[in-house]
Structure formats: C-alpha cells, structure tokens
C-alpha cells in the first residue's frame, strides 16, 4: 500500500510516522516535528558518549547482516590520525526490499540527521550517501533536502552553530546490485568497478580511499535520532521475543498478498501476523505456499515454517532462514517454484561481478540447468548436480553473492522437490507460470 495509509493496530510506528506527510520532507516541516533536536544534543556530547548510547540501545544493522551498530562504530580508531568517512548504504537492490526507498522519499531529513549523528560519533569529515541510480525520485528528494540542510546551517562548517564541520554528499550509483556489498560500494565511490574487496582489512581500518570508514544502512541510520531522543532503555524495550533483537523494523511485503507494502512492527512479531493480519493474507481462493522472509538471498520457508516463524534475527535462524533486509516475498499455491527459483538464480547470474570463478560460472550453470529442467529436458541427476554446485558456491568466494544464489536453490529443492521432479518426468505440477 502506498502512503498515507492509517497504521494497523499491530504496527509500531516510529520510523514511518511521517510517511505520506509531504511537509515532513522540508527542513521547516522536519524541525516542526522535533527534527534535528537529537543532532543538536549530540553535538554537545563527546563522540564516545554517542557510540555508547547506540551500543546500549541494542540497535543492529538493518541492511541484512544484523551486526550491532554501536559496536561497529566503536571499531573506528579513537585517536584520529587520518580522515574518517561514513558511507550510507542506500543502494537498496535486494529483491523483495523497498523500505529505504520509502524512508528517503518521505523523511529525507531523518536520514540526514541520522547520518550527521553517526558521522560525528565516528569523527568523520564526510558522509557519502550512495543511492542506486534507478531511485530517481528518492534521489531528487534527498538532493533537495541536502541542499536545504546546508542552507539552513544543519551541515557545513558550523553545523547547527556548534562550530563543528559536517559535510555530506550523494553518490549516485549506475545499476549494479553488488554495489550494496560494503566494499564494492566503496570501490564504486572511488570510481572503480563495483568489485567486492577481500577482507581483512575491514572498513574501520581501511575503507573508502583506504581510510577508516563505517558503513551503515539507511534504516539503521534513520533509527539513531529516535534512540538519542527517547533513550536506549526505550529502544531496548521494543521487543516481542528475543532480547537480542530489539527496536522496530520496516518489513516490505510483496508477491501474493492482498495489501503489499511497508509495515513497521516491533521485532519478534509473528510472520503469520504480518502476512495474514497486516497484509490481508494471500488473494481470495488461494492458499499460502512459501515465503522468503528476508530478501531473496535467504532460504525459502514452506507454509509450516512461515506460520511458525517469529520475525527477528534469532526467530528466522530457528526456522533455518535469516531476517536479512526484511523483504518478505509471499508465494501462494499458483506459484511455480521451479520457475521462480530459476528467476532468482538468473538475478544472481546477472548481478555477479565475475571476480570469483565459483560465482561467475556457478550462477550461470545454475540458471542453465534450471532452464533445462523447465524446458522438459531435465534428468533425475540434475537435482543432485544443482545441490553439489550450490555447495561449491557456498563459503568459497570474496563476498556472499554466490551463497545468496545457492540459498533459494538448495531450500527450493529441499522443500519443493516434487515440483522439480514433476518437470523432469514431463508433468509440471503448476501449469501457470508466475
């Protein structure tokens, strides 16, 4: 659903409070809603105090990996001998995920404020906000808000009248999923091909331009002002299941549901509540078949697992998948799992940077074998071949794109094997594609 729409009773509205409220896009409108108070407060604190506050809150990265944000910030050198950088990852490209786009479209100043706070905390001179090139509207909104933030003295050589300098620039991507990988993103800022780098060194030691760098996702940074304003205790209290997963999270729901869109819920909410209550379930007359809860890179759940899954980092692991970016893709009984797994594999084959053999060749072979099966030319040994290939593609490359291709293939075959076998014996179980 687009914005504005009235929040559902099971939502917890923090980040999405002003989605759909055009006035909140302006500096004046943002200030009227209490914006930039957190930044003002932070600029009067010691940077280490800001890091501690975020550490205390339990905030974890919302881009996919779920790494504790404050801890990540604390890896930056305390004694500053060289320039430091902050990168904001707004290269949202994980199939199923469209939450950062909404944050940037409606509350650009929330992101700018979050970036400014993080930048101050890690003692960085500059923030680069890396926005994917296809996001033309978020780019326009962010550029306008950034220009306004400079004009109003939020940024620049005397940020909020503090005497401190904060600079922030937008770097527009040009079409490459892999640039959402942190070191590929840094290469892209440096004017290189978006190839991920071998780690270590980690970004806090040698990131963009070889300098200490922290990189955070849009949603993570947008949560920071709320933590400063309302306190770590408040944030920690937002929890329905595991105390290691706290706060609110935006879930993007798409595919076969009645009301697709973004929903903000407290960590730990049942996935079934999100699908059936908030999104109105699958279309009339259909039944739920499968779900990918965390963006296309995480294993597929069958119906039983979906209905048992709690939406937080640990709850997803319990069901054998991951929370990832919170991109929930729902499949009803009309979905052809073989075809859709092939489409996912094709996505990764298209987006492979081609540095590592296992990924460059493995993703392409995976697609070819799946296409062969779909064309009715598969053989019974093909499924084992796919699984063997997937094993060779997991944990063996510079980044996890290859692993991400293997995840839906392995889980797809494991949970929907009969659909694959039906193609192989020449009797596809789902006639309609899609």
């Amino acid at each position, binding site marked *: 659903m687009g914005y504005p729409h009235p929040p559902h009773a099971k939502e917890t509205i923090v980040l999405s409070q002003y989605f759909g409220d055009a006035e909140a896009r302006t500096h004046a409108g943002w200030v009227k809603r209490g914006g930039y108070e957190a930044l003002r407060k932070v600029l009067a604190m010691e940077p280490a105090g800001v890091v501690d506050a975020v550490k205390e809150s339990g905030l974890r990265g919302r881009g996919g990996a779920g790494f504790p944000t404050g801890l990540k910030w604390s890896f930056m050198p305390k004694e500053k001998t060289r320039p430091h950088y902050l990168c904001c990852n707004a290269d949202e490209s994980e199939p*199923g995920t*469209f939450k950062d786009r909404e944050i940037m479209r409606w509350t650009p100043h929330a992101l700018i404020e979050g970036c400014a706070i993080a930048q101050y905390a890690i003692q960085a001179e500059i923030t680069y906000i890396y926005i994917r090139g296809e996001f033309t509207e978020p780019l326009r909104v962010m550029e306008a808000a950034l220009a306004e933030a400079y004009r109003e003295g939020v940024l620049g050589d005397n940020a909020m009248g503090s005497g401190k300098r904060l600079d922030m620039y937008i770097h527009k991507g040009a079409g490459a999923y892999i640039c959402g990988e942190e070191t590929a993103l840094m290469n892209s800022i440096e004017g290189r091909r978006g190839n991920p780098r071998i780690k270590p060194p980690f970004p806090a030691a040698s990131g963009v331009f070889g300098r200490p760098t922290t990189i955070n996702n849009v949603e993570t940074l947008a949560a920071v002002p709320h933590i400063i304003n309302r306190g770590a205790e408040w944030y920690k209290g937002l929890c329905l299941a595991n105390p290691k997963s706290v706060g609110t999270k935006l879930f993007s729901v*798409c*595919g*076969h549901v009645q009301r697709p*869109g973004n929903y903000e819920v407290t960590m730990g909410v049942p996935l079934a509540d999100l699908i059936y209550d908030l999104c109105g379930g699958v279309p009339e007359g259909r039944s739920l078949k499968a779900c990918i809860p965390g963006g296309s890179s995480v294993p597929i759940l069958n119906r039983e697992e979906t209905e048992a899954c709690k939406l937080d980092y640990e709850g997803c692991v319990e069901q054998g998948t991951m929370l990832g970016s919170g991109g929930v893709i729902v499949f009803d009984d009309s979905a052809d799992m073989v075809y859709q797994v092939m489409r996912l594999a094709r996505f990764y084959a298209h*987006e492979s940077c081609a540095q590592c053999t296992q990924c460059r060749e493995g993703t392409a072979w995976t697609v070819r074998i799946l296409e062969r099966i779909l064309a009715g030319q598969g053989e019974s040994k093909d499924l084992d071949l796919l699984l063997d290939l997937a094993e060779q593609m997991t944990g063996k490359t510079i980044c996890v794109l290859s692993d991400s291709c293997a995840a839906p293939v392995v889980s797809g075959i494991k949970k929907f094997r009969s659909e694959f076998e039906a193609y192989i014996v020449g009797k596809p179980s789902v006639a309609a*594609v*899609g």
Partner: protein
Amino acid sequence: MEATGKYAPIFVGEKKSELENILERYPTKQAALLPALWIVQNERGWISDDAMAEVAAVLEITAAYVKGVVSFYTMYHQHPVGRTFVQICTTTPCNLCGAEEVVRSFLEHTGCGELGATSPDGGFTVIEVECLGACGFATPVMLNEDFLEDITPDKVPALVAKYRSGAAI
C-alpha cells in the same frame, strides 16, 4: 556529429564548472568518474568512445579504464537508445504479479518487437531489468527518469501513446 568525425567536447563552460564542483567532494580525481559519466549520458543520451576518451583526459585516467567502468554498470549506454528508454522489472516478486505480461505489452505497443531493440521510429527501447526496488508496487517501470508503479498490461497502450507524443519527456 559522428558523421563528420568531429567530436564536440562536453566538459566546457557550465559542464566544466559542474564537474569542478563535484571534484571538490572527493580526495581523488578518479572518484568523480561515475558522476562525470552521468553528465555525459544526460547530455548526449549515451556514452561514446570519444566521450570516454574525453572523460579519461579530464580525470587523468586511461580510456581503457573508463571503458572498464562504463561496461560494469548496466545503466550506462554504450550505444544510442530510443528517445524513451523503458526498463521493466521482471525479478521474482514482480514476476509473481505478472511482470512478463507487462513486458509483452510494451514490446507490442512500442513496436520494439524484441528486448533490447529500438523501435523503427526511434521512439522506444525496451529492456527487462532485475529488481527496481519497488516490489510492493508491481510492476514498476522506468520510462527515462520517470519511475512508475503498479503498471499492468492494460495501462501500457496509453503510456506508450503519451511518451510517443513527447508529452511526458
């Protein structure tokens, strides 16, 4: 321009100052490569070998390096495209919601016939793209810089007519 064999440089006057401002954001000249390529594409509609050579000279890198970068990113055009460049998302979430029907409708109504081809009148080039990041609003379609949501096959004829007449360019 290509017919005469003469190349008119892009980074003069206003565009030169624009690039100089961009250079101030980064500690290296090379870092301005993606923004410089965007300027070229916005000005000319695509990025020719001559333009790559100009960018290389301005940023003090080699033309081969520039080509290596241009070819990595899918949004840079190395060949001219139709006046309206149509990008349709067909990755899994949109695919589940009928994106391939939207593609067929665009290919038919624009006259492109096949993916990647430009229509005989030069008006359109249609391609399939991987995830546009608007999966809840299937099917998202980009027509040049316009990012449209909830496109279904029945909306395609009117859209094509609108862009063909230049109303939305």
